[in-house]
């Protein structure tokens, strides 16, 4: 954090830099993702997780309940945390490369509503299971209203992706690679929304 100093601005759009949007995705959908790919040979070119509803995502934004946090490691201290939304659990990590996020987690006492911005990664465990975890850029306590707004936002984004279906290249690829029934995700969105009415 270099508050008060003018750091050199990130290269502008014309320089080819464009901030990757943070996708809205339910935990239940992110958990099903398997494909992690990169376009471009450059070391710095962004990598993406392909969502089963058919969108590439380099960054995600979600709001849920922080239920558990655990400090790990000795020299390379890092936090693991679980953030729960109406459809499942996000596995969140913040290590020494994300000092701001790590300090934020350290100060939050679960349970608490949190807003998370981070980058998803796909891992394969030695026994062959696939894990998706989110390396977090920021994790901030928020109120319930923000959580409810996110559920609406995420449900709308999920339905938008389902309606686009295979009409986009990523949508077509997702259909081919995952072959999942779109009805599953429609139902997921419905149930997440229905919980807000309680």
């Amino acid at each position, binding site marked *: 954090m270099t*508050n*008060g100093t003018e750091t050199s601005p990130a290269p502008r759009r014309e320089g080819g830099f464009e901030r990757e949007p943070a996708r809205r995705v339910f935990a239940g959908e992110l958990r099903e993702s398997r494909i992690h790919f990169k376009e471009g040979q450059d070391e710095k070119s962004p990598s993406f997780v392909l969502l089963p509803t058919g969108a590439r995502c380099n960054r995600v*934004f979600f709001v849920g309940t922080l239920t558990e946090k655990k400090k790990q490691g000795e020299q390379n201290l890092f936090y693991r945390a679980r953030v729960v939304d109406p459809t499942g659990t996000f596995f969140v990590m913040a290590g020494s490369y994300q000092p701001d996020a790590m300090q934020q987690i350290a100060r939050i006492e679960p349970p608490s509503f949190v*807003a998370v911005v981070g980058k998803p990664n796909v891992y394969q465990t030695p026994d062959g299971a696939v894990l998706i975890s989110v390396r977090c850029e920021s994790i901030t306590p928020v109120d319930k209203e923000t959580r409810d707004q996110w559920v609406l936002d995420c449900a709308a984004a999920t*339905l938008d992706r389902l309606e686009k279906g295979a009409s986009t290249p990523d949508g077509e690829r997702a259909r081919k690679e995952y072959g999942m029934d779109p009805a599953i995700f429609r139902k997921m969105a419905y149930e997440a929304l229905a919980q807000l009415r309680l």
Partner: protein
Amino acid sequence: MDFSETAERISQKVMSHGHAVEKTAIETKLRRLVEEFGVPLAEAERTVTNEMAREFSISGLQAGGPGEAKTLDALVPGEWVTVECKVVALTAPPSPSISQTGIAADQTAAVRFVVWSRANAPVLKEGNWYRFESAVVDQYRGSVNLKVHSGTTIREVSGGGAIKPVITPIAALRPGIASVRGKVIQEWEATHDRILQSGLIADETGSVRFVTWKEEGRERLNPGTVYTVFYATVDEFNGRLSLTLNTATVVPEEGDIEVSRGDASFEGAFVHLAPGSGLIKRCPVGGCNRVLSRQNYCPVHEIQPNFQYDLRIKGWLDNGEETREVLISRAETESLVGMTLEQARELAENTPLGMDEVFLRFRDALLGRYLSCRGREIDGRLLVSGCTRLRFQPERLADLLNRAGGSA
């Protein structure tokens, strides 16, 4: 078909260069091209004219009659044209291979013109009308340009009287030459030795950056004053427009105009609070206003212990598909974060983390929140003049339930 008139025209031209030519021979050539080969008459005339020119080694022989003069708004790159227009501005030629540059206008439009040194053209005077025959229209940095070369003939003409330039709304500007009426709403510190002044000029429809390069007789504009700017050069660079006022005649106006506050807007979640947000120190030197480093160092005016405090938010909004950088100034920041400048200053002075504490409070108050921002967009960045926190909308829940349940 009657070819005698065309043949007459060609033979006149050839004879004017001192060569005898048989009019009937020309007519036969024309007839053959048109009737046997289906060539359009105008094209046939050009073919035959060129043939004559080659035969008698005449250079600069042009097909067509004296030529209908075109209006400047009808110019298309690649054409050879005859135009009658007034020289409304002369600018310093950028290179020795160019003898004169400036702006020529008629009742319909204005264009930049270039006279090559090799053209041996007469020296043009500002305010006079000229007839340019066989000038070339081309394109330079996205705008139409008139080139005067050695084959162009220039004649001073009595002219078409006074020209009333068309005022273009700023939102409708395109590369080329344009006249605008607007108010100087911002003045920026010169970023280069050669810049006399740069800033932002706005009218009811939008705003555009302007620059005046240092040159004799050029004066700075007063911020807050309305000007009519005749014949400024509109350049495009990296997809954004800029007005160069060196070619222009700038006339201050009485009164005031309502300038556009910018109609760009963006809604989304606040996903990143950038460094340089929160409580900042600004350089107190008049017109500078740069943000100082922790050590009160201004990149231009060096150490400035008598800085001024300010509050602002720099960050990114994100709607899941697109992102937008936002810059929120003090008034909006205070109401959004619920902290006044005075409170922020006290907080910074009375906590061990100082200004960082303000940054951290800002982060906790903003990240993850859904905001709606309105303002002016410059270089892909939204300069926010109005910002509200979005609220949960129960009716949206009902709509989405219908949408999700509808075809399940």
